[in-house]
């Protein structure tokens, strides 16, 4: 199981690095999302498989138990309980990643509208003009207005 998980993590991270090295920001964004999935899977791999019953558990396997239980499993029903903490971590990371994904896609859409491109080379040619950004009485454009 660990091997399969490792393969999945490798595939996710490998593809995401390939995408991250591209010139188009849409691809880079997909790479970032995939990297997040790879990170979640790697935590999953570390959380391990369910613990064995206490009497035949080796120490390494009992590590996978929920730390709040310890090795003295209070009831047989809990003997197969996985450590819930990594799953809580993954859940948190997924929620955060989802919010960030929404933001990043919105940012890319607005950037495309404003600058007309999502290719890194062309964006780099935009001058980093800092001329009076906040003193210029520039009318605020509501969303959708072509600039």
């Amino acid at each position: 199981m660990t091997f399969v998980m490792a393969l999945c993590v490798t595939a996710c991270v490998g593809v995401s690095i390939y995408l991250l090295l591209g010139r188009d920001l849409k691809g880079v964004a997909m790479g970032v999302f995939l990297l997040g999935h790879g990170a979640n899977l790697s935590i999953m791999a570390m959380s391990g498989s369910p613990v064995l019953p206490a009497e035949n558990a080796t120490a390494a396997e009992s590590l996978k138990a929920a730390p709040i239980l310890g090795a003295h499993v209070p009831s047989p029903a809990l003997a197969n309980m996985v450590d819930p903490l990594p799953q809580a971590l993954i859940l948190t990371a997924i929620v955060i990643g989802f919010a960030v994904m929404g933001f990043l896609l919105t940012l890319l859409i607005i950037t495309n509208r404003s600058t007309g491109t999502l290719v890194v080379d062309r964006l780099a040619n935009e001058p980093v003009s800092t001329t009076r950004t906040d003193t210029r009485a520039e009318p605020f454009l509501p969303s959708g207005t072509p600039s």
Partner: protein
Amino acid sequence: MNPSLIVLLVIIPAAAGLICVPLINRLNTCRLVGVVGFALNLGLALSLLGACSQGDTSAIVTQLGGWSAPYGIALVFDALSGLMVAAASLVALACLIHASGSLPDPVERRYFHPLVNFMMAGVNLSFLTGDLFNLFVAFEIMLMASYGLLVLGRGKAQLAQAYKYVLLNLVASAIFVIAAGMVYGLLGTLNLADMARITTELAARDALPAGFTAVGVLLLFVFTLKAGVFPLWFWLPDTYPTCPIAITALFGGVLTKVGGYAVARIFPLVFLVGDAAAVLQQIILIGAVLTMAVGVFGALAYRTLRRSLAMFIIVGVGYALFGVAVGEPGAIGGSVFYMAQSMIVMAAAFLACGLIETHLTSDDLSDGGGLLKTHPWLGVLFLIGLLSIAGLPPTSGFYGKFAIIRDALGAGFTWTALIAIGVGALSILAVLRIWCESFWGPDPVVQPRDAEARAAALAREPSASGYAALVLLIAAALCIGILPQRVVGIANAAGQQVTDPGAYIAAVMGPDARPPAAESHHDTPAPAPAHGHDAAHDTGHDATHAPQTHTPAAPHPPAPEAQTDPTPDPHQDLPVAQPAPDPVPDVGPVPTPEPEPEPEPAPSAPRTGPEFRVQAHGQQMAAAPHDPAMERRP
């Protein structure tokens, strides 16, 4: 003082942000809510700092939800985090005041106030949290709000540059998640104090798990990217200067320091032990020196005011990291002092830059000059800010650099200290160049068609709130510079705490850390063992310390101070963080365990008396629990 008060430092900005959302079109109400919130935060942080430095507790700890230390999330307010929270609140207060005058109203209505408040909630949480994964969550709160602030107003340059900041931070977040998972896999805990306890104990036995250094490097990547350290600095001068100036000041003052704080907090505590210390310390040291050098050359090279100032942020981060790499208490105290004052001073310089831009037509240094004739007081305030950045003696930047370089020379970092001195000299050159070209120099050559616009800009009415914010920050910087005793005392206490993880561990875990037993006695007939106390463990698996963990009344085998050992505590079934007898005779008084047992983990009583602070790194945990990481090793 009630320790749960420190939760307010996070709750106040979060609540203020929530209040501002429905009131977003009533700008004055929003401004009032924000200013009151940050002022409350500042006052609370200062009064808690006073309680910390005068009382006998060096750290105020609260366990969120009543879940005791290794399981729940602890918030820790000590000299280091407290100083950072206070400085950040002051900067946020000033930036909010400045923004109310300088930000166009339509932009301010686009949720500027909620975003600033949420960002400060994230910043304060990352300063206070004692849990690695909670630090990730705090970073994300801070970053999400900062992404919003970064593109506020939707200038074309802003949008064209914002992707660098957003994408780099997203990659860093993914790596942070991976690293946090690895830490949990290696050490079986994410609580910083618990991690420190385990790694200290493992390092003392030279048994750090394989891959421990690699995890340290991953975390260092994450934090130094946020801080803008050498190989990862390039996004900073591209993105920060594109924002409206009040936001630039807030970012430049606060955000990079969060990364610096995370390095200063976590690395000496957890990762700079044993074999890992040699590798990581070298990485931090080289990174710090290159950061300083790159920063100061960038500041000399850029021709625009905002970008030059952005490079000075990088110089400051380099100095702060240099102090952490040196590792002496005095040097870390110097770094803490430097980071706190650098927040204030950098924000002040950016706010002054905003006022200069209103009077000139741009922030290009070639358009500057001659401003001293028309705006002498702005010139004086700006000069004070710049001299603090360079670190000349009467100003606040001096003491931090002095302490760092003094301890670096004392600890044998001669070459790097000389480089730091050289960077200081070049910084003076750079700030004087900036000041001369904007204020002191001759009037610029103005094209006839621009002359009218320039005259109009020079005569523009100064914004009262802009000056008020600038004066507030400069006055704070001057107070720190001229009367540094209080802040130096707090910073040195922070340096002591950082170099002595025993105090932090005792404060968070409790000196008689028995939290798991106290909880599980109620619902399980057989007392569930503490985290890591496996039955498999004392069935002969690791016989060296099994007798200690499960037969508490037996004296410790080495027992050079046997008189402290038979504790009168009847409930002493799990002496997890029982302070070990100190085998080094010259470090101070012999630690005496608390005679009376606490029935519950008592988050209100960190009890970090002097006996816990003299513990040397590595002697805290003689009665060590089973370490998961040990078992993982083949």
